[in-house]
């Protein structure tokens, strides 16, 4: 679920389309946008406090075969929440799990890893290498 939540709506839609005809499902909970209050910790590790809210969209679906899938994603992308819930439901179905892993989860995880690696490499280039000036009075 965390890979699906982290994916961009466009990337998730592409992965969803790769699965071909969507399975039959019923909507248990329509995609709904609401707020989650994000908490931080005093000093980073101390008691919690409320920092501010984020928009979150969630959705629950049930496949004809009975598996329920749900999603929680930052933002207000209803289609993304719906597609993530359907993918989550398919993942619960033993027959589909491997297909979901290879065709959806792995490619999306790879996109994320690549983006993270790019960011780390660009950031690493801004690391300060200190050197000490030689004193001239000896």
């Amino acid at each position, binding site marked *: 679920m965390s890979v699906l939540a982290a994916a961009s709506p466009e990337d998730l839609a592409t992965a969803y389309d790769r699965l071909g005809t969507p399975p039959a499902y019923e909507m248990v909970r329509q995609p709904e946008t609401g707020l*989650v209050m994000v*908490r*931080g910790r*005093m000093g980073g590790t101390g008691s919690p*406090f*409320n*920092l501010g809210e984020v928009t979150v969209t969630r959705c629950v679906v049930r496949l004809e075969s009975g598996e329920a899938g749900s999603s929680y*994603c930052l*933002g207000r992308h209803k289609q993304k929440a719906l597609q993530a819930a359907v993918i989550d439901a398919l993942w619960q179905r033993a027959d589909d799990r491997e297909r979901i892993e290879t065709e959806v989860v792995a490619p999306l995880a790879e996109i994320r890893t690549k983006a993270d690696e790019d960011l780390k490499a660009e950031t690493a280039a801004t690391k*300060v290498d200190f050197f000490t000036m030689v004193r001239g009075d000896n």
Partner: protein
Amino acid sequence: MYVAVKGGEKAIRNAHQLLTKRRRGDTGVPALTLDQIAEQLAISVARVMGEGSLYDEQLAALAIKQARGDLIEAAFLIRAYRTTLPRFGYSQPIDTGKMLVERRISATYKDLPGGQLLGPTFDYSHRLLDFALAAEADGEIEAPVRRTPIDEPMPRVTDLLDDEGLMEADPVSAEDAPVGDLTREPLSFPADRDLRLQNLARGDEGFLLSLAYSSQRGYGRTHPFTGEIRYGAVEVEFFAEELGFAVSLGTIKVTECQMVNQFQGTAKSSPKFTRGYGLVFGQVERKAMAMSMVDRALRWEELGEEQVAPVQDTEFVMSHSDNIQATGFVEHLKLPHYVDFQAELELVRRMRGEWFAAREAEEKASRNQKEAAE
């Protein structure tokens, strides 16, 4: 007495229509897209998300566009919007120790584990206008230099000194202890640090900056060092009741500032370094720093210090930090006060009449006295 007066509907309607036209400006110039605002005015977007207290880049970009770049008006629009959405609950506290760091510096340790990563910063720039940006097209952007990152942990600087007891430890409350929420209960005093931090996190950057500056200039005793500033993405996790486990919602970007202050100790507490904490949405470093300094100043009572300056006055700081409330009260003065003013006018007229009458009587009395003496 309030007297109902009607009128102005047509003028208001026309004024709003005119605003729509002026907002758009010259139609020969392409309209801004929300993506342009979110991508290229990222720090304005972050400020609106922070002071609007809602992290959603597209909404903040829309608010900035609608408010013609007035960031306080934009934050106001965001605050109004958030009231239309249901609250699902509270997240698990974010772990800034696991941040995907884009910038991390310390002014107290040169060689700290993980190193000093400057990231995208205005620091060390000469503040010279770059006229190349004024040209029609930006042209090709040079790809940033890359370097193989060393995957070493990046402990918070404040955890480094902790071993020696030189650094004050973070206060830890029971896991199920209630956490104050200003969006649920109105502000009351005294206010604990959880409420203070929430208030500061959504407070006005300019107000916090001035307060922090005042504490440096001698209004309040602080000797701050920037222990650490880090900026980057952190995961937000939410415990979904119906699933029975915490799910990751995705990542948000935050700036964290750990300000370290020398503390001489009191009868209650040994000399050590104490800390102020700043945490804000987006790359808003100036505010994170100011917040950490104000947080530290407001802790005077718990540390047994003297209260000598405005920055230490919890009620003063918290009651005036919110720019939405502030602008509401200041700007309401533009609304019709015709009846109020009419009453004041009568009052001032009467007072003037009495004043002149009294002065005349006084002059007459002193004239009579003078004549009698002669």
